[in-house]
Protein backbone atom coordinates (compact mmCIF):
# COMPACT_ATOMS: atom_id res chain seq x y z
CA UNK A 1 0.00 0.00 0.00
CA UNK A 2 1.30 3.45 -0.94
CA UNK A 3 2.26 5.71 1.96
CA UNK A 4 0.23 8.97 2.41
CA UNK A 5 3.30 11.09 1.56
CA UNK A 6 3.78 9.17 -1.69
CA UNK A 7 0.07 9.71 -2.56
CA UNK A 8 0.49 13.43 -2.02
CA UNK A 9 3.48 13.49 -4.36
CA UNK A 10 1.52 11.64 -7.01
CA UNK A 11 -1.41 14.05 -6.71
CA UNK A 12 0.84 17.11 -6.91
CA UNK A 13 2.68 15.67 -9.89
CA UNK A 14 -0.66 14.99 -11.57
CA UNK A 15 -1.86 18.54 -10.98
CA UNK A 16 1.38 19.93 -12.37
CA UNK A 17 1.03 17.78 -15.49
CA UNK A 18 -2.57 18.94 -16.00
CA UNK A 19 -1.50 22.55 -15.56
CA UNK A 20 1.38 22.18 -18.02
CA UNK A 21 -0.90 20.51 -20.56
CA UNK A 22 -3.52 23.25 -20.19
CA UNK A 23 -0.93 25.98 -20.46
CA UNK A 24 0.50 24.34 -23.54
CA UNK A 25 -2.92 24.14 -25.12
CA UNK A 26 -3.57 27.78 -24.32
CA UNK A 27 -0.26 28.85 -25.82
CA UNK A 28 -0.93 26.73 -28.85
CA UNK A 29 -4.35 28.32 -29.28
CA UNK A 30 -2.89 31.81 -28.87
CA UNK A 31 -0.28 31.24 -31.54
CA UNK A 32 -2.60 29.58 -34.02
CA UNK A 33 -2.74 32.02 -36.89
CA UNK A 34 -4.48 29.74 -39.34
CA UNK A 35 -7.54 31.48 -40.79
CA UNK A 36 -11.01 30.23 -40.00
CA UNK A 37 -12.97 28.77 -42.87
CA UNK A 38 -15.65 30.73 -44.68
CA UNK A 39 -18.61 28.88 -46.17
CA UNK A 40 -19.20 29.26 -49.90
CA UNK A 41 -22.51 30.60 -51.29
CA UNK A 42 -23.26 27.13 -52.65
CA UNK A 43 -23.33 25.71 -49.16
CA UNK A 44 -26.49 27.75 -48.47
CA UNK A 45 -28.42 26.29 -51.39
CA UNK A 46 -30.50 24.21 -48.99
CA UNK A 47 -32.26 27.38 -47.78
CA UNK A 48 -35.15 27.69 -50.21
CA UNK A 49 -36.48 31.01 -48.93
CA UNK A 50 -34.53 33.64 -50.87
CA UNK A 51 -34.67 36.29 -48.18
CA UNK A 52 -33.52 33.89 -45.48
CA UNK A 53 -30.78 32.60 -47.73
CA UNK A 54 -29.66 36.16 -48.41
CA UNK A 55 -29.56 36.91 -44.70
CA UNK A 56 -27.59 33.71 -44.17
CA UNK A 57 -24.99 34.88 -46.69
CA UNK A 58 -24.56 38.08 -44.72
CA UNK A 59 -24.39 36.26 -41.42
CA UNK A 60 -21.53 34.22 -42.82
CA UNK A 61 -19.89 37.37 -44.18
CA UNK A 62 -20.27 38.81 -40.70
CA UNK A 63 -17.42 36.54 -39.57
CA UNK A 64 -15.20 38.77 -41.70
CA UNK A 65 -16.82 42.12 -40.98
CA UNK A 66 -16.65 41.66 -37.21
CA UNK A 67 -13.13 40.29 -37.30
CA UNK A 68 -10.51 42.48 -35.61
CA UNK A 69 -8.65 42.76 -38.93
CA UNK A 70 -11.64 44.82 -40.13
CA UNK A 71 -13.12 46.41 -37.01
CA UNK A 72 -9.78 47.74 -35.74
CA UNK A 73 -9.80 50.30 -38.54
CA UNK A 74 -13.57 50.87 -38.47
CA UNK A 75 -13.56 52.33 -34.93
CA UNK A 76 -16.35 54.35 -33.38
CA UNK A 77 -13.92 56.95 -32.06
CA UNK A 78 -10.90 58.79 -33.36
CA UNK A 79 -8.36 56.15 -32.38
CA UNK A 80 -7.81 52.88 -34.22
CA UNK A 81 -7.42 49.62 -32.39
CA UNK A 82 -4.81 47.00 -32.98
CA UNK A 83 -4.07 43.33 -32.55
CA UNK A 84 -6.30 40.33 -32.18
CA UNK A 85 -7.49 41.72 -28.83
CA UNK A 86 -8.42 45.06 -30.39
CA UNK A 87 -6.56 47.15 -27.88
CA UNK A 88 -6.29 50.89 -28.45
CA UNK A 89 -3.48 51.63 -30.88
CA UNK A 90 -0.12 52.38 -29.34
CA UNK A 91 1.47 54.80 -29.81
CA UNK A 92 -1.56 57.00 -29.39
CA UNK A 93 -2.54 57.98 -32.91
CA UNK A 94 -5.65 59.76 -34.07
CA UNK A 95 -7.89 59.80 -37.09
CA UNK A 96 -7.08 63.32 -38.29
CA UNK A 97 -9.19 65.29 -40.74
CA UNK A 98 -8.83 62.83 -43.61
CA UNK A 99 -8.56 59.52 -41.76
CA UNK A 100 -4.86 59.28 -42.57
CA UNK A 101 -3.70 60.56 -39.18
CA UNK A 102 -2.74 63.87 -37.65
CA UNK A 103 -0.34 66.23 -39.37
CA UNK A 104 2.28 65.33 -36.80
CA UNK A 105 1.77 61.56 -37.07
CA UNK A 106 0.46 60.31 -40.38
CA UNK A 107 -0.42 56.64 -40.73
CA UNK A 108 2.21 56.31 -43.46
CA UNK A 109 4.91 57.38 -41.02
CA UNK A 110 5.06 53.76 -39.86
CA UNK A 111 2.61 51.89 -42.11
CA UNK A 112 4.34 51.81 -45.45
CA UNK A 113 3.44 50.28 -48.79
CA UNK A 114 3.68 46.67 -47.58
CA UNK A 115 4.05 44.68 -44.39
CA UNK A 116 7.53 44.99 -42.89
CA UNK A 117 7.76 41.85 -40.81
CA UNK A 118 11.21 42.52 -39.27
CA UNK A 119 9.60 45.48 -37.54
CA UNK A 120 6.26 43.64 -37.06
CA UNK A 121 4.72 46.53 -38.96
CA UNK A 122 1.64 45.99 -41.12
CA UNK A 123 1.47 48.04 -44.26
CA UNK A 124 -0.46 49.02 -47.34
CA UNK A 125 -0.06 52.06 -49.58
CA UNK A 126 -3.54 53.29 -48.63
CA UNK A 127 -3.38 52.61 -44.89
CA UNK A 128 -6.01 54.74 -43.18
CA UNK A 129 -9.12 54.60 -41.02
CA UNK A 130 -12.58 54.09 -42.39
CA UNK A 131 -14.66 57.28 -42.05
CA UNK A 132 -16.48 57.69 -38.77
CA UNK A 133 -19.86 57.06 -40.39
CA UNK A 134 -18.57 53.65 -41.45
CA UNK A 135 -17.71 52.58 -37.90
CA UNK A 136 -18.52 48.93 -37.19
CA UNK A 137 -16.84 48.53 -33.85
CA UNK A 138 -19.22 47.07 -31.27
CA UNK A 139 -22.14 46.68 -33.67
CA UNK A 140 -24.14 43.54 -34.33
CA UNK A 141 -24.13 41.86 -37.70
CA UNK A 142 -27.68 43.08 -38.26
CA UNK A 143 -26.70 46.66 -37.52
CA UNK A 144 -23.69 46.43 -39.82
CA UNK A 145 -25.88 44.99 -42.55
CA UNK A 146 -28.31 47.92 -42.43
CA UNK A 147 -25.39 50.32 -42.28
CA UNK A 148 -23.46 48.83 -45.16
CA UNK A 149 -26.49 49.20 -47.46
CA UNK A 150 -26.85 52.90 -46.63
CA UNK A 151 -24.83 55.10 -49.04
CA UNK A 152 -24.61 57.74 -46.32
CA UNK A 153 -22.84 55.25 -44.09
CA UNK A 154 -20.93 53.07 -46.55
CA UNK A 155 -18.77 55.59 -48.38
CA UNK A 156 -21.48 56.39 -50.95
CA UNK A 157 -21.25 52.92 -52.48
CA UNK A 158 -23.91 51.06 -54.40
CA UNK A 159 -24.59 47.46 -53.48
CA UNK A 160 -22.65 46.42 -56.55
CA UNK A 161 -19.70 48.57 -55.44
CA UNK A 162 -19.60 46.57 -52.22
CA UNK A 163 -18.79 43.40 -54.15
CA UNK A 164 -15.56 44.90 -55.42
CA UNK A 165 -14.81 46.74 -52.18
CA UNK A 166 -14.83 43.56 -50.15
CA UNK A 167 -13.67 41.23 -52.91
CA UNK A 168 -10.94 43.24 -54.63
CA UNK A 169 -9.87 46.34 -52.67
CA UNK A 170 -6.19 45.99 -51.76
CA UNK A 171 -6.47 47.58 -48.33
CA UNK A 172 -9.40 45.31 -47.48
CA UNK A 173 -7.33 42.46 -48.89
CA UNK A 174 -4.63 43.13 -46.34
CA UNK A 175 -6.95 41.49 -43.80
CA UNK A 176 -6.12 38.13 -45.37
CA UNK A 177 -2.37 38.75 -45.48
CA UNK A 178 -1.78 40.70 -42.27
CA UNK A 179 1.82 39.72 -41.73
CA UNK A 180 3.72 38.19 -38.88
CA UNK A 181 1.83 37.40 -35.68
CA UNK A 182 -1.63 38.42 -36.85
CA UNK A 183 -4.46 36.04 -37.58
CA UNK A 184 -5.97 36.57 -41.04
CA UNK A 185 -9.66 37.25 -41.51
CA UNK A 186 -11.72 34.09 -42.11
CA UNK A 187 -11.56 32.43 -45.51
CA UNK A 188 -10.10 34.33 -48.44
CA UNK A 189 -10.88 37.69 -49.96
CA UNK A 190 -12.25 35.95 -53.03
CA UNK A 191 -14.60 33.88 -50.87
CA UNK A 192 -15.73 36.97 -48.99
CA UNK A 193 -16.37 38.75 -52.30
CA UNK A 194 -18.40 35.77 -53.49
CA UNK A 195 -20.56 35.98 -50.37
CA UNK A 196 -21.18 39.71 -50.94
CA UNK A 197 -22.11 39.03 -54.56
CA UNK A 198 -24.49 36.24 -53.57
CA UNK A 199 -25.99 38.47 -50.89
CA UNK A 200 -26.53 41.37 -53.31
CA UNK A 201 -27.99 39.14 -56.03
CA UNK A 202 -30.38 37.54 -53.56
CA UNK A 203 -31.86 40.86 -52.47
CA UNK A 204 -29.39 42.00 -49.81
CA UNK A 205 -31.55 40.92 -46.92
CA UNK A 206 -30.31 41.50 -43.41
CA UNK A 207 -30.21 38.93 -40.64
Amino acid sequence: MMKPGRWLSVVILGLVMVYVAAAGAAMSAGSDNRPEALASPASFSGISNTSRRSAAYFTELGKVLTNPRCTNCHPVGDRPRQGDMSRLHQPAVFRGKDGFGLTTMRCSTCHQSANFDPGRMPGNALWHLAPLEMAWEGKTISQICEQIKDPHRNGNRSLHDLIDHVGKDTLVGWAWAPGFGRKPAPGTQKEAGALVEAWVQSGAACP
Partner: protein
Amino acid sequence: MTKLALTINGHAHGPVDVRDDLTMNDYLRESLGMTGTKFGCGAAQCLSCVVIVDLPDGTSHTNPTCVVSAASFDGKKIRTIEGHATGGQLTVLQKAFIEHFAFQCGYCTPGFINEGQVLLERLARTPIARADLETTIADALDGHLCRCTGYVKYHEAMRDVILADPGRFLKGA
Protein backbone atom coordinates in the same frame (compact mmCIF):
# COMPACT_ATOMS: atom_id res chain seq x y z
CA MET B 1 18.79 43.68 -51.70
CA THR B 2 17.71 47.21 -52.55
CA LYS B 3 19.68 50.31 -53.50
CA LEU B 4 19.60 53.04 -50.88
CA ALA B 5 20.75 56.60 -51.37
CA LEU B 6 19.75 59.35 -48.99
CA THR B 7 20.92 62.56 -47.40
CA ILE B 8 21.69 62.55 -43.69
CA ASN B 9 22.42 65.82 -41.93
CA GLY B 10 23.22 67.41 -45.27
CA HIS B 11 25.63 64.70 -46.40
CA ALA B 12 24.91 62.26 -49.22
CA HIS B 13 25.10 58.56 -48.37
CA GLY B 14 25.10 55.76 -50.92
CA PRO B 15 23.92 54.40 -53.15
CA VAL B 16 24.56 51.19 -51.25
CA ASP B 17 22.92 47.80 -51.32
CA VAL B 18 20.86 47.12 -48.21
CA ARG B 19 18.96 44.02 -47.20
CA ASP B 20 15.22 44.32 -47.60
CA ASP B 21 14.78 43.30 -43.97
CA LEU B 22 17.24 45.87 -42.60
CA THR B 23 15.54 48.44 -40.39
CA MET B 24 16.46 52.09 -40.69
CA ASN B 25 17.52 52.01 -37.06
CA ASP B 26 20.03 49.23 -37.74
CA TYR B 27 21.27 51.04 -40.83
CA LEU B 28 22.01 54.19 -38.84
CA ARG B 29 23.41 52.50 -35.78
CA GLU B 30 25.15 49.42 -37.18
CA SER B 31 26.05 50.34 -40.74
CA LEU B 32 26.89 54.02 -40.22
CA GLY B 33 27.79 53.96 -36.52
CA MET B 34 25.38 56.84 -35.84
CA THR B 35 24.29 55.66 -32.41
CA GLY B 36 22.67 58.94 -31.41
CA THR B 37 19.44 57.54 -32.78
CA LYS B 38 18.33 55.13 -30.07
CA PHE B 39 16.69 51.75 -30.15
CA GLY B 40 14.09 51.58 -27.41
CA CYS B 41 10.93 49.52 -27.59
CA GLY B 42 11.37 48.31 -31.14
CA ALA B 43 7.67 48.87 -31.75
CA ALA B 44 7.36 52.60 -32.47
CA GLN B 45 5.81 53.16 -29.07
CA CYS B 46 8.52 55.05 -27.18
CA LEU B 47 9.72 57.13 -30.15
CA SER B 48 13.32 57.32 -28.90
CA CYS B 49 14.28 56.21 -32.41
CA VAL B 50 12.71 59.03 -34.41
CA VAL B 51 14.61 61.06 -36.96
CA ILE B 52 13.50 64.18 -38.80
CA VAL B 53 12.39 63.78 -42.39
CA ASP B 54 12.63 66.96 -44.48
CA LEU B 55 10.04 67.13 -47.22
CA PRO B 56 10.44 68.91 -50.57
CA ASP B 57 7.78 71.48 -49.61
CA GLY B 58 9.92 72.75 -46.76
CA THR B 59 7.97 71.05 -44.02
CA SER B 60 9.31 68.29 -41.81
CA HIS B 61 8.10 65.53 -39.56
CA THR B 62 9.57 62.90 -37.31
CA ASN B 63 9.64 59.26 -38.31
CA PRO B 64 10.34 56.19 -36.18
CA THR B 65 13.22 54.11 -37.50
CA CYS B 66 12.81 50.87 -35.56
CA VAL B 67 9.79 49.52 -37.41
CA VAL B 68 10.47 50.65 -40.96
CA SER B 69 12.92 49.45 -43.55
CA ALA B 70 16.06 51.31 -44.47
CA ALA B 71 15.08 50.91 -48.10
CA SER B 72 11.96 53.00 -47.51
CA PHE B 73 14.20 56.02 -46.90
CA ASP B 74 15.65 55.92 -50.39
CA GLY B 75 15.82 59.43 -51.83
CA LYS B 76 14.86 61.13 -48.58
CA LYS B 77 16.55 63.86 -46.60
CA ILE B 78 16.75 63.22 -42.89
CA ARG B 79 18.29 64.76 -39.82
CA THR B 80 19.50 62.84 -36.79
CA ILE B 81 20.54 64.06 -33.37
CA GLU B 82 24.13 64.23 -34.62
CA GLY B 83 23.09 66.95 -37.06
CA HIS B 84 21.71 69.54 -34.66
CA ALA B 85 24.83 71.16 -33.22
CA THR B 86 27.04 73.00 -35.67
CA GLY B 87 30.71 73.79 -35.12
CA GLY B 88 30.45 72.47 -31.59
CA GLN B 89 27.66 74.91 -30.78
CA LEU B 90 24.48 73.40 -29.40
CA THR B 91 21.17 74.67 -30.68
CA VAL B 92 18.94 76.89 -28.58
CA LEU B 93 16.70 73.90 -27.92
CA GLN B 94 19.57 71.69 -26.81
CA LYS B 95 20.79 74.40 -24.45
CA ALA B 96 17.29 74.77 -23.02
CA PHE B 97 17.10 71.03 -22.37
CA ILE B 98 20.38 71.25 -20.48
CA GLU B 99 19.32 74.32 -18.50
CA HIS B 100 16.13 72.59 -17.43
CA PHE B 101 17.92 69.29 -16.83
CA ALA B 102 15.14 67.96 -18.99
CA PHE B 103 16.80 64.59 -19.34
CA GLN B 104 18.12 62.24 -16.72
CA CYS B 105 19.40 59.04 -18.29
CA GLY B 106 19.20 60.77 -21.67
CA TYR B 107 18.05 57.79 -23.67
CA CYS B 108 14.86 59.45 -24.89
CA THR B 109 16.47 62.84 -25.44
CA PRO B 110 17.34 62.49 -29.14
CA GLY B 111 13.69 61.74 -29.86
CA PHE B 112 12.50 64.71 -27.83
CA ILE B 113 15.09 66.99 -29.46
CA ASN B 114 13.99 65.94 -32.93
CA GLU B 115 10.31 66.34 -32.09
CA GLY B 116 10.92 69.69 -30.44
CA GLN B 117 12.93 70.93 -33.40
CA VAL B 118 10.14 69.95 -35.78
CA LEU B 119 7.69 71.88 -33.61
CA LEU B 120 9.90 74.98 -33.56
CA GLU B 121 10.20 74.93 -37.33
CA ARG B 122 6.45 74.43 -37.68
CA LEU B 123 5.70 77.37 -35.40
CA ALA B 124 8.20 79.52 -37.31
CA ARG B 125 6.21 78.80 -40.47
CA THR B 126 2.82 79.02 -38.79
CA PRO B 127 2.84 80.97 -35.52
CA ILE B 128 0.16 80.21 -32.95
CA ALA B 129 -1.67 82.21 -30.30
CA ARG B 130 -0.09 82.30 -26.86
CA ALA B 131 -3.26 80.74 -25.48
CA ASP B 132 -2.66 77.64 -27.59
CA LEU B 133 0.97 77.19 -26.65
CA GLU B 134 0.66 74.72 -23.77
CA THR B 135 -1.64 72.41 -25.72
CA THR B 136 0.52 72.68 -28.80
CA ILE B 137 3.66 71.66 -26.93
CA ALA B 138 1.85 68.83 -25.16
CA ASP B 139 0.39 67.53 -28.41
CA ALA B 140 3.75 67.70 -30.17
CA LEU B 141 5.64 65.81 -27.47
CA ASP B 142 2.80 63.38 -26.85
CA GLY B 143 3.83 59.80 -27.54
CA HIS B 144 7.46 60.23 -26.56
CA LEU B 145 8.17 58.13 -23.49
CA CYS B 146 10.63 59.12 -20.78
CA ARG B 147 11.19 56.46 -18.15
CA CYS B 148 12.85 59.06 -15.92
CA THR B 149 9.57 61.02 -16.14
CA GLY B 150 11.14 64.24 -17.40
CA TYR B 151 8.02 65.28 -19.24
CA VAL B 152 7.42 68.53 -17.35
CA LYS B 153 11.03 69.62 -17.82
CA TYR B 154 10.95 68.90 -21.53
CA HIS B 155 7.71 70.86 -21.77
CA GLU B 156 9.12 73.80 -19.81
CA ALA B 157 12.26 73.87 -21.91
CA MET B 158 10.18 74.00 -25.07
CA ARG B 159 8.04 76.77 -23.64
CA ASP B 160 11.10 78.84 -22.69
CA VAL B 161 12.56 78.62 -26.17
CA ILE B 162 9.31 79.71 -27.75
CA LEU B 163 8.61 82.54 -25.30
CA ALA B 164 12.16 83.79 -25.69
CA ASP B 165 11.40 84.61 -29.32
CA PRO B 166 7.67 85.38 -29.40
CA GLY B 167 7.87 87.41 -32.60
CA ARG B 168 8.98 84.30 -34.41
CA PHE B 169 6.75 81.66 -32.90
CA LEU B 170 3.60 83.40 -31.64
CA LYS B 171 0.87 85.28 -33.45
CA GLY B 172 0.48 88.95 -32.66
CA ALA B 173 3.44 89.03 -30.31
